C-alpha cells in the first residue's frame, strides 16, 4: 500500500466513522437515557436518504431538499415517540424490540409503496461536485471532505450541548438515574420526546448527506444499524464521547479491513468489539 492509497483510505475511514457517529449518537442517547432499543433507527437513515432523493427531484435543489427533509424527520420522530413508545417505557425490552422491529417492516414497506424497489442515486450537489488535489498523486472528493466537516461540526455542537448546557447536564444525569432527574422536578417525558426526535433527525440527516456518496436503496439502513450497535457497545451505552471514538475506530477498522484483509473484513468489527468488552465490559467510556 503506497502512501497516497493509505491517505485515501484514512480519509475514507474518517468520513465513514464520522457518518457512523451521527447515527450512533442518536442510538446511544435513545438507548442510554430512554432505555429504548430502537431497531428502527437504521430505517430512519434509509428514510432520510429517500426523502432527500425525492425532494431533490421535486424541488431541483439538494440543499433546499435537506432544509425541507430535516423538519419532516423531526416530525416523524415526534409522532413515533408519542404514538408508539409512550406506552412502552415501563415495559420489558422485549416489547420495545417487537415494536421497533415492527416499525422496520412498516417503514420498509412504506418506502416500497412510495418509492418502489429500485435503486436510486442523488447527484453530488454543487459546489462540491469536484475533487481536490491533496498531493501530486492524491485526489479526494470535495463532497466527502464537506461531509466530514459537517459531521465534525455536528459532533462539536452535540459535545458542547452535552458538556456545557443545563440540558446536557440533565441528559447525562438521565443516562444514570432517570427517576432522580424526575425527583428534581424535571419533566423527563418531554426530555424523552426531545431526545428521540433529535436522535431520529440525526440519523435521517446522516442518510441525507450520505445519499450522494452511495446509492439510495431499499433496506440500506439495516446493515448500518448493526454496525452502529457495535459502535454504541464499544463506546459505552449512553456516552456521546464513546459513540464518537467508537465510530472513528469502527469506521477505520471497516475501511482498512476491507482493503487489507478482505476475507475477514466482515468479522473485524466484531473482533474489535469482543476485544474491547474483554478489557472494558461496559465499553470504553461508560
Amino acid at each position: 500500500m503506497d502512501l497516497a492509497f493509505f491517505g485515501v483510505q484514512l480519509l475514507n475511514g474518517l468520513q465513514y466513522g464520522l457518518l457512523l457517529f451521527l447515527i450512533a449518537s442518536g442510538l446511544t442517547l435513545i438507548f442510554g437515557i430512554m432505555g429504548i432499543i430502537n431497531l428502527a433507527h437504521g430505517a430512519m437513515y434509509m428514510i432520510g436518504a429517500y426523502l432527500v432523493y425525492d425532494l431533490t427531484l421535486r424541488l431541483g435543489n439538494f440543499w433546499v431538499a435537506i432544509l425541507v427533509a430535516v423538519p419532516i424527520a423531526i416530525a416523524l420522530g415526534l409522532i413515533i415517540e408519542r404514538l408508539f413508545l409512550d406506552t412502552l417505557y415501563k415495559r420489558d425490552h422485549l416489547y420495545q424490540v417487537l415494536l421497533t422491529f415492527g416499525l422496520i417492516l412498516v417503514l420498509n414497506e412504506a418506502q416500497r409503496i412510495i418509492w418502489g424497489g429500485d435503486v436510486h442515486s442523488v447527484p453530488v450537489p454543487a459546489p462540491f461536485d469536484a475533487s481536490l488535489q491533496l498531493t501530486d498523486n492524491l485526489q479526494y472528493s470535495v463532497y466527502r471532505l464537506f461531509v466530514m466537516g459537517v459531521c465534525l461540526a455536528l459532533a462539536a455542537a452535540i459535545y458542547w450541548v452535552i458538556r456545557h448546557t443545563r440540558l446536557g447536564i440533565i441528559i447525562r444525569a438521565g443516562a444514570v438515574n432517570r427517576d432522580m432527574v424526575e425527583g428534581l422536578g424535571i419533566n423527563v417525558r418531554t426530555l424523552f420526546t426531545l431526545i428521540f426526535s433529535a436522535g431520529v433527525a440525526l440519523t435521517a440527516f446522516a442518510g441525507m448527506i450520505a445519499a450522494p456518496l452511495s446509492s439510495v436503496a431499499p433496506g440500506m439502513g439495516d446493515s448500518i444499524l448493526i454496525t452502529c450497535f457495535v459502535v454504541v457497545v464499544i463506546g459505552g451505552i449512553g456516552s456521546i464521547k464513546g459513540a464518537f471514538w467508537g465510530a472513528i475506530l469502527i469506521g477505520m477498522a471497516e475501511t482498512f479491513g476491507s482493503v487489507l484483509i478482505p476475507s475477514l473484513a466482515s468479522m473485524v468489527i466484531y473482533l474489535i468489539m469482543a476485544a474491547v468488552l474483554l478489557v472494558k465490559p461496559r465499553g470504553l467510556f461508560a
Partner: protein
Amino acid sequence: MTAAQQVTTPLIDARNIHTYYGESHVLHGVDLVLMPGETLSLLGRNGMGKTTTLKSILGFVPPREGQVAIKGIPVAKRRPWQLIRQGIGYVPEGRGIFPGISVREHLTMAARSNDRGETLWTLERVLDTFPRLGQRINHDGSFLSGGEQQMLSIGRALTTNPDLIILDEATEGLAPLIRDEIWKIIRNIQASGIASIIVDKNIDNLLDVADRHLLLVKGRVVYSGDSHGLKADPSILDTHLGVA
C-alpha cells in the same frame, strides 16, 4: 391563593393512603398533614413504610386508595416531577448523586425560583451554607465523601427554592461529626422557614428538631404527636423502636 390561605392550607394533606407493591399491601390508611414551616419526622423500624409514604406522596409509587393534596390541590395521576415542581425539594435515601456530573453541575441542573418568583437559595448562598462544596466545586459528585454527597444532595434540593424539603435517611451511614454538621444544617433550613419531612434513625435529634412525629408500624400510623408526648410516654418508642 392569598397569603392567609397559604398559611392555613397544608403543604401536604395525605388522607387514608393505601399503597401496594404489586399485590403486597404496604401502607394501610396513612394520614399525613404538614403545615407551612412545620418539621415532621417519620419514625419506624426498617420496612415499616416510611420511604413508601414519601414515595406515595411524591407520586413515585402512587397510592391505590386515598387522596393526596399539595398546597390544597389534589394531585392524583400527576407525575412526580409535577408534584415536586409545586415546591418540594427531595433528598432521597442514597442521596441520588449522579456519577460524571460535577458539584457545580449538580447545583445548577435543577436551580429555579419558587412559585412566587423568589430565588432565596442561589448557588452562592448554598456554597456559603456548605463551604466544603465550594472547595470541591469542579469535582465529580460521585467522588465526594458520604457526608459531602449528603450536603450536595441537600444543596441541590435547596437550589429549587422549595417550601418543603424531604430528607429520607438524612444522616444514614455518616460519621458522627458529619452527622452533627448535617443536623446543624437541618436546623438552619428549619429556621429559614422551609418545612421539612425527615426520616432518620437518630431519635434524639429528631425529638429535638421536629415539631411533630408520625410513628409507622407495618404501614399504619401508631403515634402522631409532638416531642413532649413521646418524651412523656417512653413506652411508645420502647415498644416500637426499641429505644427509650
